[in-house]
Each structure stands twice: as C-alpha cells, then as structure tokens.
C-alpha cells in the first residue's frame, strides 16, 4: 500500500517536473510577449548540445548545465534581435515563422553536428521503495522545477525588471510612455525564456539520448501545458496546468499503462482548451473573485 502510494506520488512529481521544466521558458515568452515560439525545442537542443560538449571537455556537471542555459540564452537573443522582434503580439504569424525556424535549425544541426552526440551519464544513482527502484536524479529535477518556478515568481514580483516586465505585458504603449525601455525588456525576456529552455534541455539530456529531434519530444507537451495554463498569470498558470495535467497522466499511467496515460493527458488538454480557452489561470482568477464577492 505504502509502496503503491509512493509509486503514484513519484509518477506525479516526475510528470510535474517534466511539464514545468519544458514549459516554463515557453510560458514566459508566450505570456509576456504574445509570441508562440515553435522553435522552443531547438533552444532546448542548444542547451543539451552545449552541456554535452562542456561535460566531455572535462568540466563538472554543475558547470556544464549552466553553460547549456547560457548558450541557449545567447542563441535566443540573436534570434530575437534578427527575427522574432518583428512578430510581437502577432500570435499566428509568430507561430508560423518560428515553426519555419524550427525546421531550419533542426535540420541545420543535423547537417553540422551529425545525427547523434555522446549521451551523458545520469548522476546520483537510485534508491528503492517496496521492491521498486527509483532514480534520485528525478527527485532532483522535481526540486529544480519547483525552485525555478519560485525564482520566476520572485523575479516578477520583487525586482525592478519584474515590475517593468509586467507593465510592458499589461500595456506596452503606456509602459513605453512612462519611460520603460520596452525593446530592452522584450530582449531580456526572450533571453530569459531561452535560458530556461536551455536549462530544461540540459537537465533532460542527462537521461535521454541527444539527437537533432531531441527538442521535438518535449515541444508539444510544453505547448499544451502553456495553453492550458493561459497567459494571464504566468506562475499560477504554469503550476495549475502542470498539476492538473500530471494528475491525469499519473493516475492513468498507474491504472493502465504509459501510452494510455499520455493519451489521457492529451485528451484532457483538448477538453480543457475547449472549455476554458483563456487558460486555467484566468479561470481560477474569476472563481476567486466570485468567492471574494459573495
């Protein structure tokens, strides 16, 4: 009983960290700038590649992972300056252009770097509960996912950048008139989103083979998490969406199998978008406001 309960909890936490980490960078870019970044997976790939290269150059992982995030941030800022800044607030156009970018980059990496790169060893080993073996690294990722979310919340809430970024998100023209350098805010925000994508890529690279389509394994679920969460409150949306989608996935995975768990998650995402297209965060806000009034 205890071991079954732990297994369910472990699955749940694992799925939450997967969704949160893969979606957080996308969420910031979507929520703050109204850009659907289909090249998200390729930013993750940049992080994964860099981590692998730095690690096999002989440096430890705690250097290699931040190096991956930084490389993705630098790459993201270049993309933003060259292309993406022309598409702010144009959801459909930004989706199409970044999709083209994704195709271009994935195939470009394939040609330049080749079909595969040395995989990284999964650190920390494993522990067992009730006869089943679990990985410490997954627990570590869960902690990182929570820490990243908390850090984003604090960044937006307490820093000067956070205030300016939220102002730019609410009303760019007004923020600009009040002296906020919105162009710079956009650039920094995209860089931050790209860095988080790179971080996710680096972390996932420690337990999955790195190949040019690496990012594409995560992009769709990241999108679903973002759209289900909605853009009215980034942190609340991310948490609500990851919690609810993971609950469906964990329950169906333990009751049936991994495939049915995945399908159930997609179906529930479809249903949620159908009924609350503006996302869980706005839905929760309305519910809370109604409760407060009554």
């Amino acid at each position, binding site marked *: 009983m205890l071991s079954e309960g732990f297994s369910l909890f472990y699955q749940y936490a694992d799925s939450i960290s997967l969704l949160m980490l893969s979606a957080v960078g996308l969420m910031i870019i979507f929520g703050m700038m109204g850009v*659907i970044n289909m090249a998200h997976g390729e930013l993750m790939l940049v992080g994964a590649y860099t981590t692998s290269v730095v690690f096999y150059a002989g440096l430890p992982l705690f250097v290699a992972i931040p190096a991956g995030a930084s490389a993705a941030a630098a790459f993201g800022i270049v993309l933003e300056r060259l*292309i993406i800044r*022309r*598409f702010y*607030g*144009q*959801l*459909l*156009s930004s*989706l*199409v*252009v970044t*999709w*083209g*970018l*994704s*195709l*271009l*980059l*994935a*195939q*470009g990496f*394939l*040609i330049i770097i080749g079909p595969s790169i040395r995989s990284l060893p999964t650190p920390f080993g494993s522990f067992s509960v009730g006869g089943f073996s679990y990985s410490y690294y997954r627990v570590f990722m869960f902690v990182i996912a929570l820490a990243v979310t908390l850090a984003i919340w604090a960044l937006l809430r307490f820093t000067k950048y956070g205030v300016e970024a939220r102002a730019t998100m609410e009303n760019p023209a007004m923020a600009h008139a009040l002296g906020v350098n919105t162009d710079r805010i956009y650039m920094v925000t995209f860089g931050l989103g790209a860095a988080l994508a790179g971080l996710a890529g680096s972390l996932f690279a420690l337990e999955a083979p790195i190949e040019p389509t690496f990012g*594409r394994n995560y992009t*769709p679920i990241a*999108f*679903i998490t973002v*759209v289900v969460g909605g853009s009215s409150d980034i942190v609340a949306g991310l948490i609500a969406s990851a919690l609810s989608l993971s609950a469906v996935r964990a329950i169906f995975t333990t009751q049936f199998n991994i*495939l049915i768990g*995945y*399908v159930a998650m*997609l*179906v529930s*995402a*479809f249903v949620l*978008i*159908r*009924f609350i*297209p503006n996302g869980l965060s706005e839905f929760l806000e309305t519910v809370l406001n109604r409760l407060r009034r009554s």
Partner: protein
Amino acid sequence: MLNWFSSVVRLINGEQEIGRSRGFWICAFAVAVGLIVLPRFVSAYALLNYSYIISMVFLALGLCLIWGFAGILSLGQAGYAYGVVGINLSQSGTTYLALIAGLMVPTLFAAVLSYVMFYARVKGVYVAIMMLVVTLLFETFLNQTAGPQWHIGVASLGGNNGLGRFSGAIHEPPSITLGLGSRLIEFSGQSVAFYYLEVGLLIAIYLCLRALVNSRFGLILAAIREDGARVESFGYDVRAIQLVVFCLGAALAALSGILYVSWGNFITPSVFGVTNNILPVIWVAVGGRKSLTATVISTVVLTWLSQRFAIQGEYAFVVMGALLVVVMMLRPEGLITSFGGRKTSASPPLSPGSSHDGR
C-alpha cells in the same frame, strides 16, 4: 444557357482571386495544354514524380481555403490524409466504396472536430494548438498498432510501418479502380491514366474553388477572416460557416491522401509528424495564402525544388525553413500575391480595423 454560362465565368473570374486578366487566362490555358501533352515528352520516372507533385497540390489548396480565405490555421492538415485507411475496404473490383470512405471519414471527423471547436468559440491560435493535440493523439495511437489485433477488415494497420508492402500487412492499399461491370480502368500510380486523372481533378477543383471563393459564401469567408464579430452582427452564423469550410479543407486533404496512397500504395503514421504538417504551411505561406493560384504555383515549384535539394544532400528542409522565415519577414502576404497580383494593404495581419478598404 448563354446567360448561365456568362454568370459562371464571372464567378470564376471574380475579385477574390488574382489572375483575372486576359493574359493570365491565355497562360493558364497554355499550362493546361502543356500538362496534357507532357506525357509524350518526359520519361516515365519524371511523370511519376509529377503525379506525386500534383497530389500534394490538393493538400495545399485545402489549407489555402481554410487559412487564407477563412483565417483558420490548422497544424494537422496532412493528418487528414490518413483517413485513407478506408481505401482498404474494398479488395476486389472497383474502389468506389473505398474512395467514398476515404473522403467521408476525414470529412466527418473534421465536422465533429470543428463542431467541438467553433461552436465553443475557440479561435485563432487555439484552434491551431488543438489541431496539434489531435494530430499527436493520432500519431501516438497509430504508432502502436503494430500487432495483429489492430486491423480494419483484412488490412492490418501496421503501426510504425503503416499500410503497405513494408508492413506486416499482406494487403497493400489498392490503386484507384473505376468502371462499370467488367470494363474496369485501374489507375495505378505509374500509369499515364493516373496522371491524367490528377490533371483533370486539378483543373476541375481549381475552377470550382475559384467560383467558390467568389460566391456569396466566399465573400462571407473573407469577411470572417477580416472581422468575425462584425459578420456575426450582420446575422450570419459564423460557426456554421467555419464548420463547412473546415470540412471542405479536410475533404481536399483527404483527396490528396487518397491520391498519394494509390500513387505509392503505402502510407505511414509519419503524416501526422511535425515535418509533414509544416510543409503545406510553407507552400501556402510562401506563395500567398490569400490566393488559390499562388498556392498552386508555389506548391508545384517548392515541391520540385525540395526534390532538387534533397538530391544535393539534406538541405531541402533548411532551404524550406529559411524561405518561410524570410518570406514571413519581408513579404508576409506571400511572394506571388505581393509581386504579381493586386495590391494588398500593408497593415500587420492582426490589426483589424485598419484594413477595411472594401476588399
């Protein structure tokens, strides 16, 4: 009779489409004649290749109709082509039943999907994401149908390997066979007959779609694209119109799928993959999504170019991706429509209120 004919001509040559001059129609006629005499001048291999290219044009036309004219971007358009599993239904004689099933299944599926989406007022980018989810669901499901328990009639679904000679399925998807009684014509993918079937369909469907976008229905579509709320306030049921056009787009994609399957006698779940679904978006966006003519031209040119670059190495996707990015940055309305056709307003696509110039 003459009256009726001239009104049809006026419909086909209406304002919603570029290429309305006498010169254009002379060129178009020359192209049609060229297509008809082509088999005399090219090798059997080249003809096979042209048959493939033409089968892709229907897919692009479907996307052009729903994206360019109705403003609904679908990220899973190529996936509809798989509705063609129905083509395995008939194992001997004519394939009428299979053709009808191959067209009807995806269209009905699109009807259900669009009922779910449009009647809930889901729009814009959310439709695109929902289509992506549906496409993923299908890919996941069909990839695991390798076992013998997954079959429709005698045709096993074959999982990752799809339908065809590479999978466990002994029954390949058949070629299109039409006729009455014992007088059957088999349109096998390599044959000249198949090529002519496609050319005939292409000309007929192109003209029908031109008439459609210039009809009352087409004008309402364009109005919905520009400002859905305003159309609604005039008393039109926007949801129902979106549903109909979405089904039409799906039917065109399904036709493309049927032709593709009977061309190569196989298909795999990779049609639900990212790459296969972005290619139609590239063809339509690069040519000009608001024009059927531009879509046809750019689909043919880009598919042909992709094959040239694929021979050179693996540069086809790099070139296609780069082309899409450059066109979206410099000519967001598409290359052909902004150079060759009517002037389009220079306003950004997502700022309605600035583009009511009576187009």
